[in-house]
């Protein structure tokens, strides 16, 4: 109580200082008067009485100061004075202030922006209740497309029964449904989930209810929980949505609730539904088929159970089922299950890129701080005279240090404010980058934690800067004043520190430049990759006339769909400028993910070798010509390859090399195989190879080409389906006309990915381009700052050595010699920095190896190029101060002494 009261009194005192000062002066004066009077009464003469009284008082000023400290908040009063002083001092050197503030703002801005992304995507706790207890089970095997197989329902069941450290296993099956909206039909990505899903995931609704175990099974009405994203996107966040009926795949589905915002893996989801909406998911194929893998498993660790425990149990269960069901696990393909914390899985694609950017930003910060430190040091030396005088007038070293700190804090805070403004813009750009890598991009915020980080960085920089500058030691003031301390001279130690900072700047710049160079070359290499298609004047569009359910459960729909595809094709071919129109599925440069094992007649893989798997694709006769995919051997499909005629296929180069290395595959027979075919409408009949097509980069520009088997569009069910349109000029302009044709013939059908091949390719390159551009801009920024740094330090050195240079010149050194002397001084720093930088870059390149494509981490071209570039810039930066040194007039210098 009394402390609070005292504190309030002090705060009040802080504001009423001036009036209280008068009062105090009167009080002390009255004390002095009374004491003087007493002394006189004792018999002293008035002067002596007053002198004695003053002596006893211990000094009125000191007393007033002591009372003042007690009365208000001296800490704040001093700080306010320091800051006022700092602002005044900085106003007097606007050039210094501007450079420092801009440098810091760039460094702080870059760090703030990237940290906010790192935090949102990688560090922030998951929105799920106890999200760190969630683990993702990843089923994988060797070979293309084997990285994430998902699980079959029988496998899930085995883990559910055999791994007690998993308290609950949620099932999530990625699926697309055709949503009939007000403005046409669209396919939406959804997740089909078990009733325990939300309980296991620890998610809550923001509206309505979530699905529960009672929504499981075949005999229940289909219900839908909108994800927050889907709710916003499709329904604009309409709060009356719960209870509404929507049309999905022609069925009426009730919206029962809206989920809190949460990330999904492996893909986005606009809604989560119970399994009953898909006949397929409740069919015996799905429920009983051990190789029918369409389910993602996310589990919650049992209380007290560790991830390690779960790994051991999962491995044991998996070993048991592998030996019990040998036919489902081809031993050559190395099937395996990994248990990974869910948070890690969500961040896995973004992690390397983000840490790369964070590292680059941190490097920029180091360089900025080093530059500011150098500027401060130089200014510190120039201000030594001022500081000595201040010290002589009674400012203690602590007080001087505080003054410096106040200055640096003011600089850092202004820098931080500008930096945050830069970050606001940067975050928007980075969020669009992060969206490609992470399902958590919408969690990126400039929030309190991020501002805390920014603040901590700024204050740390300010503290470092303040304690870097060496202050005159107490006691050394007098001698300095005697020495007439207006001669500018830095101690050797200070020079060494400045030089060290320049070396660091150069080294860090080299590392950044090398990274930028490698990423830029990666991007160029990627853009140069041959897609296997004609890039110019080819337009693709996906038009899935049938939903998977229609294909699987209504075979009659196939014929009418094919008839409509043909009509659309004919009309498109009649559009002006159109050269060829192909029909096929899926579109080139897109991966269907539909992959099965392939067997070749008379050839079996060697023991222990993986069974080859190929992607399932269909094409009509014009498809290859329209897409510009070369037929390397044999023939394309012809109009005679019809349903009922002999089954024929075209394989791609990769599959041909796999099964018929150095042989002629034409006329050989090949077939789909594997247990899983039982669950599909695909026949395992032998098919005759009639052609070999060139490889296409369907898995991405940086992926290995995958084995592909093309079937005649006419001989297979119309799964997916779309058009490849080639024109003689300006094909992009045909998109509208082609879309109109589809709309007229099939009004309620989604039209997706209307893109030219060039656009598809660009989409694949653009994240890398952004990466390269960001790191390059950091690199360029670093080089500029470093160049300013080295030039500044040399310039300072020249001005500190003016005297010496003057003497040298008067003793006969010509200007060329002086210039070389200064250049040599800079050259040594540059050389050391380059050596350290190249060494650092070697290490850094190994770390980012995973982000490179088509270029070795130690690519000599990049390394040599970067070194030469940095050296050239460094020498140019040294030249300016060297020239100035050479122009020193010895006569003027000597006279100035």
């Amino acid at each position, binding site marked *: 109580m*009394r402390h609070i*009261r*005292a504190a309030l*009194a*002090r705060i009040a*005192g802080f504001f009423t200082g001036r009036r209280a000062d008068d*009062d*105090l002066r*009167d*009080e*002390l004066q*009255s*004390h002095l*008067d*009374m*004491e003087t*009077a*007493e002394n006189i009464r004792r018999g002293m003469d008035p002067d002596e009485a007053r002198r004695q009284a003053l002596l*006893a*008082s*211990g*000094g*009125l000023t*000191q*007393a007033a*100061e*002591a*009372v003042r*400290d*007690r*009365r208000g908040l001296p800490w704040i009063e001093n700080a306010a004075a320091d800051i006022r002083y700092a602002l005044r001092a900085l106003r007097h050197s606007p050039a210094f202030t501007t450079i420092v503030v801009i440098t810091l703002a760039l460094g702080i801005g870059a760090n703030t922006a990237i940290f906010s992304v790192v935090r949102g995507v990688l560090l922030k706790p998951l929105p799920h209740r106890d999200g760190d207890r969630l683990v993702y089970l990843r089923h994988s095997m060797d070979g293309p497309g084997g990285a994430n197989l998902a699980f079959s329902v029988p496998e899930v069941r085995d883990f559910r029964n055999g791994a007690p450290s998993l308290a609950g296993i949620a099932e999530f099956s990625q699926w697309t449904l055709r949503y009939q909206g007000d403005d046409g039909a669209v396919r939406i990505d959804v997740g089909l989930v078990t009733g325990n899903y939300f309980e296991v995931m620890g998610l809550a609704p923001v509206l309505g209810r979530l699905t529960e175990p009672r929504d499981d099974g075949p005999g229940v009405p289909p219900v839908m929980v909108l994800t927050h994203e889907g709710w916003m996107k499709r329904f604009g966040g309409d709060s009356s949505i719960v209870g509404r009926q929507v049309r999905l795949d022609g069925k009426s589905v009730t919206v029962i609730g809206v989920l809190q915002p949460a990330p999904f893996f492996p893909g986005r989801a606009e809604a989560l539904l119970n399994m009953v909406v898909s006949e397929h998911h409740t069919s015996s194929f799905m429920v009983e088929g051990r190789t029918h893998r369409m389910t993602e498993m996310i589990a919650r660790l049992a209380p007290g159970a560790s991830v390690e425990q779960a790994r051991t149990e999962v491995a044991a269960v998996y070993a048991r089922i592998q030996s019990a069901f040998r036919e489902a696990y081809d031993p050559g393909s190395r099937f395996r299950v990994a248990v990974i914390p869910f948070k890690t899985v969500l961040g896995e694609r973004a992690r390397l890129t983000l840490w790369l950017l964070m590292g680059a930003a941190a490097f920029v910060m180091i360089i900025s701080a080093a530059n500011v430190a150098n500027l401060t040091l130089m200014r510190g030396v120039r201000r030594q005279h001022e500081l000595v005088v201040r010290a002589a007038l009674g400012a203690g070293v602590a007080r001087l240090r505080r003054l410096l700190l106040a200055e640096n804090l003011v600089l850092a805070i202004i820098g931080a404010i500008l930096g945050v403004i830069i970050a606001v813009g940067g975050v928007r750009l980075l969020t669009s980058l992060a969206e490609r890598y992470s399902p958590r991009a919408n969690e990126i915020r400039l929030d309190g934690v991020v501002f805390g980080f920014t603040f901590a960085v700024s204050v740390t920089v300010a503290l470092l800067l303040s304690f870097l500058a060496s202050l005159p030691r107490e006691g050394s003031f007098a001698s300095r004043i005697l020495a007439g301390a207006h001669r500018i001279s830095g101690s050797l130690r200070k020079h060494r520190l400045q030089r060290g900072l320049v070396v660091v700047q150069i080294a860090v710049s080299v590392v950044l430049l090398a990274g930028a160079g490698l990423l830029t070359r990666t991007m160029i290499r990627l853009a140069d990759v041959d897609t296997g298609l004609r890039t110019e004047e080819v337009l693709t569009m996906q038009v899935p006339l049938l939903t998977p359910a229609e294909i699987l459960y209504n075979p009659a729909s196939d014929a009418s769909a094919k008839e409509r595809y043909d009509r659309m094709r004919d009309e498109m071919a009649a559009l002006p400028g159109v050269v060829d129109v192909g029909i096929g599925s899926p579109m080139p440069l897109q991966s269907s993910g539909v992959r099965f094992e392939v067997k070749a007649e008379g050839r079996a893989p060697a023991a222990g070798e993986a069974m080859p798997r190929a992607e399932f694709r269909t094409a009509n006769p014009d498809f290859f010509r329209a897409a510009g995919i070369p037929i390397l051997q044999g023939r394309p499909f012809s109009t005679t390859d019809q349903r009922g005629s002999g089954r024929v296929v075209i394989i791609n180069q990769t599959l041909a090399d796999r099964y018929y290395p150095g042989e002629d595959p034409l006329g050989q027979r090949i077939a789909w195989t594997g247990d899983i075919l039982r669950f599909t409408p695909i026949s395992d009949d032998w098919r005759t190879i009639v052609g070999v097509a060139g490889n296409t980069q369907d898995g991405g520009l940086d992926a290995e080409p995958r084995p592909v088997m093309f079937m005649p569009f006419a001989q297979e069910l119309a799964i997916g389906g779309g058009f490849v349109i080639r024109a003689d000029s300006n094909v992009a302009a045909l998109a509208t006309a082609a879309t109109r044709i589809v709309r007229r013939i099939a009004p309620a059908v989604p039209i997706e990915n209307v893109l030219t091949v060039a656009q598809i390719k660009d989409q694949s390159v653009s994240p890398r381009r952004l990466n390269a551009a960001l790191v390059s801009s950091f690199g360029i920024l670093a080089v500029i700052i470093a160049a300013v740094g080295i030039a500044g330090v040399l310039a300072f050195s020249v001005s500190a050595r003016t005297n010496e240079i003057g003497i040298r010149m008067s003793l006969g050194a010509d200007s060329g010699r002086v210039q070389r002397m200064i250049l040599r001084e800079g050259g040594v720093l540059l050389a050391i920095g380059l050596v350290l930088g190249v060494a650092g870059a070697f290490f850094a390149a190994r770390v980012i190896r995973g982000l490179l494509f088509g270029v070795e981490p130690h690519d000599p071209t990049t390394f040599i190029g970067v070194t030469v570039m940095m050296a050239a810039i460094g020498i140019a930066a040294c030249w300016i101060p060297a020239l100035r040194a050479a122009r020193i007039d010895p006569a003027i210098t000597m006279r100035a002494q």
Partner: protein
Amino acid sequence: MAEKLDVKQGTLALMILRTLEVLGPLHGYGVARRIEETSKNCLTLNYGTLYPALLKLEQEGFVIAEWRQSENNRRAKYYALTAAGRRQLAREARDWHRTADLIAAFLAPRREAP
């Protein structure tokens, strides 16, 4: 004159409160004189010690100050004990006695065990 003593931290407040209790409202000078006399001039209080202490007591609400005419017709700032100040004095005096007894017991000549 006896050796000068430093005013122990915390004891000055007690001395001031006690002085005001015994003598009633008093100005700073009077308080200083009284403390010096009571200590038989072992203690001297300069202004820089006395006035911050008085201010602190005032901030804590143990004394109140007001300007008055002194006995020989000068204006002076008089400090008077408040009710809270009286309670505080009683509490501190009690604590002080106990501490003093304790220290005395500690420093007492050791008695041999019987």
